[in-house]
């Protein structure tokens, strides 16, 4: 029993260190590509913590959605933007930034203090099937059916919205033939002038 406990502590320690190191890397690397890869470390470590908390379904979802989709999307966008993704150093609003950093740290320290003082009684042993795909799936299609459908609708709206926003301004298809003709006439005219 003591050995299992020690192993559990070591596992938690590795995951916690990876998560915090990845988080610090995400916010401190100047190059966003390195930031995205640090975020990947953090996400995988958090998936490991989900496993320890008896949430295997969420661990799988975390890996598929975050590591598989969100981080890859970040990498795609960073690569589309290219070298401009690392803007040159600029000290505008430096006071606001430092003040924001101090305020954020203070609020975080308060939250950490409050949470560290929280005590739980004996944690009940999880029943078999706690957090499994079956139990969460059954819940999603019974008690949480409406939120589930709303979430799927939201995802569809997000896809359409993302495409519409990222595509930018396209030339008006109605105006295109006229413009083409005009440019042809123009080029023909230019040709005559050259003659």
């Amino acid at each position, binding site marked *: 029993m003591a050995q299992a406990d020690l192993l559990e502590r070591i596992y938690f320690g590795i995951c916690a260190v990876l998560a915090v190191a990845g988080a610090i890397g995400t916010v401190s690397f100047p190059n966003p590509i390195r930031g995205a890869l640090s975020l990947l470390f953090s996400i995988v470590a958090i998936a490991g913590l989900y496993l320890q908390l008896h949430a295997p379904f*969420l661990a799988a979802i975390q890996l598929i959605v975050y590591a598989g989709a969100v981080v890859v999307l970040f990498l795609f966008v960073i690569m589309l933007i290219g070298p401009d993704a690392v803007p040159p150093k600029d000290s505008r609003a430096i006071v606001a930034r430092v003040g924001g950093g101090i305020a954020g740290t203070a609020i975080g320290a308060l939250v950490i203090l409050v949470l560290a003082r929280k005590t739980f009684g004996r944690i009940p042993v999880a029943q078999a099937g706690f957090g499994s795909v079956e139990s969460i799936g059954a*819940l999603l299609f019974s008690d949480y059916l409406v939120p589930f459908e709303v979430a799927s609708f939201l995802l569809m709206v997000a896809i359409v919205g993302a495409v519409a926003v990222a595509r930018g301004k396209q030339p008006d298809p109605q105006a295109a033939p006229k413009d083409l003709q005009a440019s042809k006439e123009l080029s023909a005219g230019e040709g005559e002038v050259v003659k």
Partner: protein
Amino acid sequence: MIPIPAFLVLAAILFTIGTVGFLVRRNVLVALMSIELMLNAINLTFVAFNRAYPNEHTGQTTSFFVIAIAAAEAAVGLAIVLSFFRLRKTVRSDSADLLKN
């Protein structure tokens, strides 16, 4: 058995790092990644509290929906970043000042 407050404190540390990153960094991409970090920390809190009260799955289902919303948010946010980059040729959030003056 790892005590639940250990997970809660770890999640609070991750959330703090995300908050500070969001407030201090001026790269829009890093700001979006900090938001993802904060959402992850909150999910960890939900799952840890759910482990403390394992008769229901409320925390885990809430985390599931948070992940779905976070994915939608990342997609739309990155589309806005791309659009902003086309307009201004930079990803500094200071440069989003069309409505100034």
